[in-house]
C-alpha cells in the first residue's frame, strides 16, 4: 500500500488529460469493434475502481466481486425487461440489492482478522453465480436474458457504440473524481491508516470494523453500477460472464495496475481487457499466456506496474548520477 503519488493537483490534471485523450479516441476511432473494446474497458474500470478502494486502501481482498457485477446486471436486465421498470430506477434497485448483500456478507466476515473476507466472498460469489444459473424463471437460466432494453435519456437512445462510449466514460470520470475526493479526505486517510496498521488505526479512534464494511459496500456499489451499464450495452447477459473467473480477473486488474493508486485500476483494466485482443495472435495459447503474465508480473512487480515502473525509473536515475 503506497502513498498516493503527487498532490491532488496532479490528480486533477491527470483526469483532465484523460478526458482529452478520450475525446480524441471518440472523435477519431470510427471502427465500432475498437470502440466497443473501449466501452468495455470503461465499464470494467468502474467496477475495478471500487475494488481498488477495497484492496488498496482497506487492505482487503474480495474473490467474489463478480457477484455484485452480476447482481447489477441482472437487476437492470430483469426489472426493465420483465417488469418494465425505468432503467435508472432499476439501476438504483441493483445498487440497493448489492449494498444489502455486501452488508450481510461483510458484517460477520470483517469482524475477523486476516483474509476471511477473501474466503467468504469466494463462497458468496460462487453461490450467487449458481443462483443466476438455477433461478431460471427469473434469470433465464444458463441461456441468460435476451433483449434487454437500451438506455434512454429524454428522447435520445444510447444505441450506438460512440454514444455508449461517451456515457460510460463520463460516468467513469465522475466516479474517479469522487474517488479522488474520498481518498484525499479524512475518510480516505482513515481507510489508508486502516490498510497500513489496523491496531494503530483503532488507537486513532477509527472503528475499523465499520470502516472496512463501508469500503466493502462502496466497492459493491461501483461493481453493481458497472454491471447495470454492461447489461444495457450488450443487451444479452448470461451467468457465464459473472463467475469465479470474472472475479479473479477483477482482482488481477487491481493488482497488476497497482493497489496503492486509483489510476492503477484504470491501467490494469486497460491492459487486461485489451490483452485477449493481442493474444488472439496466439489463438489457443491465449489462456496460457494470460496465466504466465499474471505470474511474472506478481513475482517481479508485486506493487503493480505503476509503482514497479516508478521504482525501476528511480533506480536508473540513481545509477546515472552515481558516477
Amino acid at each position: 500500500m503506497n502513498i498516493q503519488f503527487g498532490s491532488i493537483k496532479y490528480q486533477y490534471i491527470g483526469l483532465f488529460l484523460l478526458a482529452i485523450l478520450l475525446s480524441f479516441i471518440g472523435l477519431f476511432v470510427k471502427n465500432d469493434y475498437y470502440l466497443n473494446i473501449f466501452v468495455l474497458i470503461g465499464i470494467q474500470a468502474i467496477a475495478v475502481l471500487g475494488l481498488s478502494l477495497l484492496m488498496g486502501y482497506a487492505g482487503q481482498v474480495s474473490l467474489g466481486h463478480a457477484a455484485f457485477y452480476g447482481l447489477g446486471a441482472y437487476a437492470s436486465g430483469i426489472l426493465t425487461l420483465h417488469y418494465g421498470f425505468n432503467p435508472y430506477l432499476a439501476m438504483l434497485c441493483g445498487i440497493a440489492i448489492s449494498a444489502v448483500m455486501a452488508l450481510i456478507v461483510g458484517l460477520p466476515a470483517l469482524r475477523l482478522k486476516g483474509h476471511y473476507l477473501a474466503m467468504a466472498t469466494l463462497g458468496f460469489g460462487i453461490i450467487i453465480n449458481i443462483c443466476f444459473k438455477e433461478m431460471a424463471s427469473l434469470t433465464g437460466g444458463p441461456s441468460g436474458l435476451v433483449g434487454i432494453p437500451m438506455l434512454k435519456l429524454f428522447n435520445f437512445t444510447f444505441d450506438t457504440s460512440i454514444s455508449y462510449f461517451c456515457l460510460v466514460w463520463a460516468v467513469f470520470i465522475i466516479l474517479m473524481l469522487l474517488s479522488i475526493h474520498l481518498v484525499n479526505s479524512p475518510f480516505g486517510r482513515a481507510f489508508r491508516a486502516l490498510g497500513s496498521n489496523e491496531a494503530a488505526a483503532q488507537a486513532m479512534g477509527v472503528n475499523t470494523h465499520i470502516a472496512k464494511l463501508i469500503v466493502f459496500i462502496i466497492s459493491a456499489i461501483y461493481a453493481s453500477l458497472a454491471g447495470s451499464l454492461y447489461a444495457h450495452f450488450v443487451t444479452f447477459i448470461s451467468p457465464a460472464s459473472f463467475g469465479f473467473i470474472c472475479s479473479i480477473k477483477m482482482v488481477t486488474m487491481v493488482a497488476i495496475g497497482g493497489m496503492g493508486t486509483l489510476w492503477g485500476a484504470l491501467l490494469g483494466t486497460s491492459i487486461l481487457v485489451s490483452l485477449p485482443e493481442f493474444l488472439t495472435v496466439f489463438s489457443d495459447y491465449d489462456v496460457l499466456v494470460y496465466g504466465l503474465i499474471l505470474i511474472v508480473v506478481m513475482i517481479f512487480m508485486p506493487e503493480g506496474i505503476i509503482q514497479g515502473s516508478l521504482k525501476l525509473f528511480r533506480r536508473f536515475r540513481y545509477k546515472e548520477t552515481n558516477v
Partner: protein
Amino acid sequence: MSEVLLNVKNISKRFGGLIAVDDISFYVRAGQIKAIIGPNGSGKTTLFNLISGHYQPTSGSLYFYGFNITKWPAWKSASVGIARTFQNLALFTNMSVIDNVLMGVHIHTKAGFLSSLFRFPTFFKKEKEARDFALEKLSLLGISDIADKKCGDLPFGLQRLVEMARALAAEPRLLLLDEPASGLDIHDRNRLCEIIRQIRDEGITILMVEHDMNITMSLAEEVIVLDSGKKICEGSPKEVQRDPEVIRIYLGEG
C-alpha cells in the same frame, strides 16, 4: 488528592492456558506520571493493551472517569480521550508525517462525508483547521520541518517523535506510552524526558511502561512493578527501589 482518572479493578487476561495478567488493580490520578516496570514477559504490554481496549479482559473491570469501559473496543476508548504509543512504533509508514498526525486530529475534528465528497467550502475550512492544529503539535516537538516526508523513510528517533505528536493531536486526557525510550540514544532520551514533563504540565495524565530505570525514576511519581502477570509492588520510586521483592526479581536471589 486529585480525582481518579483510571481505575483498574482485578483485571485478568488469559490466552488459552497462559495467564498473562493476573488480578491486577491500581488507580491513576489526574495529572500524574505513573510508570509500570517489570522484567520481560511480566505482562506490561498485555496490561497496556487491556487498558487501551486492544484486548478484552478475561475478568475484572476498567473505569475511566468513573465510566465503565471494560468492554470498550480500542476505537471507542480512543474517542473519549485515551491515546497511546506502541513499543515497536505503529506509524502509518506509507503516509506522510502530517497525514499521520492528522489521524490524531480527526478524533475530534474532521470534515463530513458529503462535504469531503463534493468539496463544499466547509471541507476546505475544516481541513485547514485540522492541518494547522497538526502543525502546531509538530512544532511543539520541534519537527514541523518534516511534515511532508513519508514516515517510513525517517530515522527511528524522529519516528518516535511523530508517533508522540500523533498521540498528542488526539488531545487525550490519558496518554499511554509504551516504552517511549526504547531505541533512543542518550541525547534523544533527555529530550524525551523534557517532552514528557511538558505534556504533563499541559494537563495530560501519563501512564508509561519503561525499561530504562533512570528515566522511570526521574519522571515517575508512582511506580508499579509487575512480575509474571502479578502486581508485586506499588509506591514512589524510592520505595520501590528498596523493596526486597523488586530487588529479587531484577537482580536474582542472593
